[in-house]
């Protein structure tokens, strides 16, 4: 039998997570987050109740709910993304499918999306350059899909102005990180001027 020697690589083709810090703002890739998406099948809208049981409470329109072991955010009518620790829940999609049965379609997203954490002490000037979200009303526990540098993304708010979680298609990881890092440098330079 062929002996395969396979090694996990991040979305950047590296062995460890991509991380860049500029003037107190840090963008860190999170390859340790497992992802799956859940969509209720036709007429199964009450799956929202099962999702609430799994994720420790209901997750309504535009909401992001952090919890253990599962965090979740609303991505569309009767649709959610679920996030979990990759080491403990590598087969997250299969786990969810077992719990939800044939009332929902569950799709593994580990290789579909890449998760970044953006932290710092004044992120609003950065995000307002990157996306069209109304940041004055974007509070902790909210999620919104938007376009960043022509790339479809999710922005999840953990602490307004201080901590956000960003997601984009995995193959866009380099371009996305480049765009965010360019703005990080630009905002830092303007603040210093």
């Amino acid at each position, binding site marked *: 039998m062929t002996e395969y020697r396979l090694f996990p690589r991040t979305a950047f083709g590296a062995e460890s997570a991509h991380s860049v810090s500029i003037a107190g703002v840090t963008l860190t890739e999170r390859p340790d987050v497992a992802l799956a998406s859940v969509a209720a099948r036709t007429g199964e809208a009450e799956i929202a109740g099962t999702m609430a049981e799994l994720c420790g409470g209901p997750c309504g329109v535009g909401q992001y709910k952090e919890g253990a072991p599962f965090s979740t955010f609303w991505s569309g009518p009767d649709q959610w993304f679920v996030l979990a620790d990759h080491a403990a829940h590598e087969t997250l999609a299969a786990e969810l499918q077992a719990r939800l049965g044939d009332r929902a379609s569950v799709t593994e997203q580990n290789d579909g999306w890449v998760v970044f954490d953006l932290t710092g002490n004044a992120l609003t000037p950065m995000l307002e350059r990157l996306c*069209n979200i109304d940041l004055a009303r974007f509070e902790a526990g909210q999620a919104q899909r*938007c376009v960043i540098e022509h790339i479809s993304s999710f922005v999840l708010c953990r602490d307004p102005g201080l901590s956000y979680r960003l997601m984009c298609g995995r193959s866009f990881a380099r371009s996305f990180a480049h765009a965010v890092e360019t703005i990080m440098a630009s905002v830092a330079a303007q603040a210093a001027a």
Partner: protein
Amino acid sequence: MLIPHPILGLRDAQEFTYLGDASLLDRPDGMAEGASEAFHDYLYLRDNPAGEHRELWFHEQGDRSWLVVTRNTLTHEITKAELARDVALARRGVK
């Protein structure tokens, strides 16, 4: 232009893509008598009103729902936006 999304509120039109006349929801039965005639009309014949127009928009950079938007083609005033899913299900219920 802002589109009043029925779930998410006012959203910039650049988040959406436009498909066309909302009559596209009324797809003819391909197995029925005179289907080719019906499909010809479905595919090629459109009203082009100067005024109120019902049209399909896709919220691509948002919740990815299809909307039926009622828009005045002269003023771009939007008078109504509904989830296309609700419109289609309501029509199916009527039939």
